[in-house]
């Protein structure tokens, strides 16, 4: 018990230090832009990573906690992007307000679609969301006058890398922190209860519908913000680049790799997968997708509880057990024992 606690405390300190380093990182940009200690493209890479972590955390906060696997989460990214884009291009709304508007569009849509689809169980919810995603892509294509149809929308180019860096870093940090706090509350715990046994949870007094819709809308709002930010920094959106199936899959993979339903899971998973993919890409070229596929299968099969799972409970994964068998000594995990305290 104590060891566990110490380990978590250490992780917390590490996280804080890392955050401070990340916040200070772009400073050279301002102090001495000509000294290329920190380049725009480095900042840009980080920005992308932060967005991934941010979105994976959103996805995890909903799907990882409630067990409703949203296979169309990219639809909210897309709505955020298009909401922002349309507000800026067609109505000339300034960016900060447009981003909020886009996120609100995403949240409202989440409320509407969630009210209907959140009654579905298991894979059916996933399919319904996937269907929603595909349908939305075509709808955006069809309503040309607003969205520009298949040709997309061109946003005013504003490519301030350090700014996007800070915005995404802080946004991501806030979201992760909020989720961390939430997990410790009754609200967060009841999301888990919904995942484990929804009917039971309902009968034990949890208003499951309200909880599901609340967290769904919050997560989608948050993803909508990311969509808006992405649209602005990419300067161009069209249905196929913002409503991109792989975007959802990517989030799912990252979360699983890190640890589904854990707060740190998406952060760790996104970071690891982001770098891992680059390494695979660089080393396997033509085969990289095949290698990546094989790697993902291995991860899912042998580390289903993710990296956090291994850290937290080595017994839960075959890899963890292997690790423990060969290298483990330290912590004695408390074993269940049968109860026979018959008489005092």
């Amino acid at each position: 018990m104590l060891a566990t606690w110490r380990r978590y405390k250490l992780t917390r300190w590490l996280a804080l230090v890392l955050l401070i380093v990340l916040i200070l990182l772009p400073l050279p940009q301002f102090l001495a832009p000509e000294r290329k200690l920190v380049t725009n493209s480095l900042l840009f890479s980080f920005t992308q990573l932060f967005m991934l972590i941010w979105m994976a955390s959103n996805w995890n906060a909903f799907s990882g906690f409630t067990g409703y696997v949203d296979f169309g989460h990219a639809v909210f990214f897309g709505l955020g992007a298009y909401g922002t884009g349309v507000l800026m291009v067609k109505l000339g709304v300034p960016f900060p307000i447009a981003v909020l508007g886009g996120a609100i569009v995403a949240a409202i849509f989440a409320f509407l679609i969630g009210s209907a689809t959140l009654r579905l169980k298991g894979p059916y919810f996933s399919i319904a969301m996937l269907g929603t995603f595909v349908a939305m892509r075509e709808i955006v294509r069809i309503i040309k006058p607003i969205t520009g149809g298949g040709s997309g929308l061109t946003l005013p180019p504003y490519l301030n890398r350090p700014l996007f860096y800070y915005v995404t870093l802080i946004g991501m940090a806030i979201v992760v922190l909020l989720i961390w706090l939430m997990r410790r509350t009754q609200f967060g715990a009841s999301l888990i209860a919904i995942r484990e046994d929804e009917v039971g949870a309902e009968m034990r007094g949890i208003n499951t519908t309200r909880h599901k819709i609340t967290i769904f809308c919050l997560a989608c709002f948050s993803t909508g913000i990311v969509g808006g930010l992405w649209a602005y920094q990419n300067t161009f959106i069209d249905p196929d680049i913002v409503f991109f199936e792989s975007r959802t899959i990517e989030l799912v993979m990252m979360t699983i790799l890190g640890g589904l339903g854990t707060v740190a899971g998406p952060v760790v998973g996104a970071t690891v997968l982001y770098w891992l993919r680059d390494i695979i890409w660089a080393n396997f070229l033509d085969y990289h997708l095949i290698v990546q596929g094989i790697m993902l299968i291995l991860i899912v099969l042998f580390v289903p509880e993710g990296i956090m799972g291994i850290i937290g409970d080595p017994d839960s994964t075959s890899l963890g057990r292997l690790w423990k068998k060969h290298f483990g000594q330290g912590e004695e995990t408390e074993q269940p024992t049968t109860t026979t305290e018959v008489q005092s």
Partner: protein
Amino acid sequence: MTMDSNNGRPLLEIQDVYSGYRTDFDILKGVNIHVKPGEIVCVIGPNGAGKSTVFKALYGFITVRQGRVLFDDRDITNIRPQDALKSGITIVPQLRSVFPQMTVKENLEMGMYLERDKKRINRQIDYIFDLFPRLAERAKQKVGTMSGGEQRMLEIGRALMWEPKLVLMDEPSAGLAPLITKSIFRGIKQLNQQIGLTVLMIEQNARQGLEISDRGYVLELGRNSYEGTGQELLHNSEVRRAFLGGH
């Protein structure tokens, strides 16, 4: 009560079995149980003692890590479920195990899945319907819509379809109304006397279970701690106090 329990070699012998769900942790730590042909043997014990785990290890759902299981003088340690069935053991598990979308009749037919002789299957179904008239009434009902007790009857009936040499019953009376419980216990006894059916059962309804049993075991913390005839256990003050909620 113990008329034919002393003759012959044991039909089933569990020798010093170790087993569990995780690789590095044993739930069963040396269980020894034997059942002679034609006996009814009842295992009692506190919740979580490992009673059901014994059955799972016997029937090949989890692996035996140490020790042996002998049946009919053959070593059946870590046998596969279908082979256990073929050698004449059937099981009524603690948790529900019916095919909810199939009818009562189809469920019974599945009990004879390994049998190809249609006539024999039908004969056995008639026999089970005689045993449980309630099932005959509901022959065409989807099992998923039946009450808990009705499903329990069906499970027992299905286990008997196969005309096994040994039935493992994990709390057969759980959730059954007294009338049915009585008739099931009486029925078990009857089958035992008529066709020499051998039964190894787990019961929390320990009094009634031990009443009809020839012998009984008490299982605690993954080991058996007491052993004796049903009556002995029923009257052992230690056992009464600890496991029978005795007065």
